[in-house]
């Protein structure tokens, strides 16, 4: 029997209400995460890419129990979040930490940053109280800040320094997983490189698993071992970094990669992929959610929602065209397809 993965997400749905009736009961919702499966091993970095509104941040929050699952399970270190009591959940939170996009808004402006980091230890009751200050000092060193920074307040520090403290606050609890939600998007390129290098170093030193959420494909390529591409609540392609960037299969992944403006002037006149406008998330198209923007869409894509299935070992894609499934074969072979077809 092999050991279970650090994080195991199965059939996860997260929904937000978008409209309510006069009594405040939700009448409509948007599925920010709409049936997602993946696993993450110890020490592994999974990059989660997608455009705004695709649900990547919601998924990141759900795996550390910051958002409740509407359906499906999140198993972290073998524990099913839905079955834990509040106390047990608090214990598990220590092992799954979070780094936010904007360090300016994720610290208490009236508390010194050293105190903010120490508070994490106080809440989790990690170390004896008199050892905690030493632990904070140690972690400040690890993220490249001096002891003099501990007494500073957030407004006295630059964005890059604050993000280092964001990392310190997560790291001081000795977690096994850190969800990084666009941790460098608010930073300038020169500082972004400092933070990415730091994360890479610390990941090795602390044997950390990272779920690295970003809209920036180049950043994800730099840091991730495996990459998942999300589109409106669904992971449409997931595979190793090598395969995703060398041999992308899903038409959406292709479009994303072709859209990134390259510094190489040889690509200056490459035409932009003609993708059309994104759909309304509350009224996704029937069948495949990407079909109205997809250059390879055909009749089956309108009728049936493709699941994310392995097309080669370690490479899963949600696309009928990539799988080479035509309408007739889909009808014969899969009962689930007929079912979705009837409901849409």
């Amino acid at each position, binding site marked *: 029997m092999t050991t279970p993965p650090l994080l195991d997400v199965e059939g996860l749905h997260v929904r937000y209400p978008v409209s309510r009736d006069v009594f405040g009961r939700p009448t409509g919702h948007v599925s920010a995460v709409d049936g997602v499966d993946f696993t993450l091993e110890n020490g592994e970095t999974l990059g989660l890419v997608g*455009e*705004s509104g695709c649900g990547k941040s919601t998924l990141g929050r759900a795996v550390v129990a910051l958002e409740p699952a509407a359906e499906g399970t999140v198993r972290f270190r073998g524990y099913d979040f839905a079955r834990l009591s509040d106390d047990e959940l608090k214990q598990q939170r220590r092992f799954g930490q979070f780094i936010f996009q904007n360090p300016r808004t994720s610290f208490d402006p009236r508390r010194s940053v050293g105190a903010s980091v120490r508070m994490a230890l106080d809440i989790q009751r990690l170390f004896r109280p008199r050892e905690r200050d030493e632990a904070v000092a140690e972690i400040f060193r690890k993220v490249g800040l001096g002891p003099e920074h501990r007494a500073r307040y957030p407004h006295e520090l*630059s964005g*890059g*320094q604050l993000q280092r403290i964001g990392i310190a606050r997560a790291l001081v609890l000795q977690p096994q997983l850190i969800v990084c939600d666009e941790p460098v998007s608010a930073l*300038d*390129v*020169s*500082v*972004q*490189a*400092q933070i*990415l*290098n730091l994360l*890479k170093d610390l990941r090795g030193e602390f044997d950390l698993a990272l779920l690295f959420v970003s*809209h*920036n*494909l*180049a*950043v994800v*390529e*730099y840091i991730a071992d495996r990459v998942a591409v999300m589109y409106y609540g669904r992971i449409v392609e997931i595979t190793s970094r090598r395969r995703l*960037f*060398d041999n992308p299969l899903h038409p959406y992944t292709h*479009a*994303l*990669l*072709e*859209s*990134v*403006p*390259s*510094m*190489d*002037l040889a*690509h*200056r006149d490459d*035409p*932009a*992929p*003609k*993708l*059309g*406008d*994104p759909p309304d998330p509350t009224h996704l198209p029937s069948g495949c959610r990407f079909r109205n923007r997809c250059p390879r869409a055909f009749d089956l894509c309108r009728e049936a929602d493709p699941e994310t299935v392995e097309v080669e070992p370690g490479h899963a894609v949600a696309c009928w065209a990539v799988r080479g499934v035509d309408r007739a074969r889909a009808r014969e072979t899969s009962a689930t397809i007929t079912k979705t077809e009837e409901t849409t």
Partner: protein
Amino acid sequence: MVTTTHDDRHGTAGSADDLLAIRGLRTEFGTGDRTVRAVRGVDLSIARGEILGLVGESGSGKSVLASSILRLIRPPGRIAAGEIVFDGRDVLAMNTRTLSRWRGRDIGIVFQQPQGCLNPVRRIGWQVAEPLRLKKGLGRRAAWDEAVQLLRSVGIPSPESKARAYPHQVSGGQAQRVMIAIALALRPKLLIADEPTTALDVTIQAQILELLRDSCRTHGTSLLFVTHDLGVIAKLADRVAVMYAGNIVETGSVGGILESPRHPYTRGLMDAAPRLRSSEGERLRDIPGSIPNLARPIPGCPFAPRCGLRKELELDRCDREMPPFVQSAERHAVRCWGLPEMRTANRTNAAAPEREIVR
């Protein structure tokens, strides 16, 4: 009609054919000890039909420079010194009436957040029609029809019905197309775009960049666009100016800047940005430190405290004196004491009444 003039120009001087010429521009905010000098003496010119990319990080003064050209600096900010000449006219001498006629008609602007710039309670079509009615004097019907045409030309699908929509009913990408339609409605000579695609998704960004480039090329409109993204520069610019801490540090053709950057900051920016499908396992070369405080005097080169070349060559002069522009190749000007030609020039000019540079 495409008019690209590529005469022997560099960062310090323009030619008579320039649509826009800026000299010694200084823009400041606040007073006394707390004065933030955001733009610290900038010379810049844009030729007719040219696309100039202004690249820099936050705090470099690139947006303040763009706003200064439009005279959109509000107190406590002010343009403290310099000259802005647009098509032979002195922009800093214009009175309010001339200014408001000039804006929109001769110069258009596109901002970063399109949704924030559109009036939420007016139909899109009327917002595009407004400059046509106010400044071109068209009647309601004619202005509306031309607005629909403009929306079509910027790639809005079914423009007749979209013209009737309100801003919240269109996506961010479409709203930016609407902004471009408004900015181009009166066929201005210069379009200024401040981070026009930063708020957009990457697939939409690619389309908007293409639209901006094609619209400007078709009508011979000059374009000054501000960005922090060198990839966007590569896609769009004919010429590039790199800004750091209120100064332009390097300017040249897009090929010159991206393929043989000379200023240590430009080189640092290019190395620090992760690139798709770059060699694996290689560490990003970051630039240590952060930008200087613009409220304090910066006697020397503002990049000196972070500069690897300054450290390597132990150039004290970098801390004391701002280097002048040196034209290093055709249309390529750089200001850096560390350049090889600067070092020899300093040695040979030892007789000049300048402090000699010592290693």
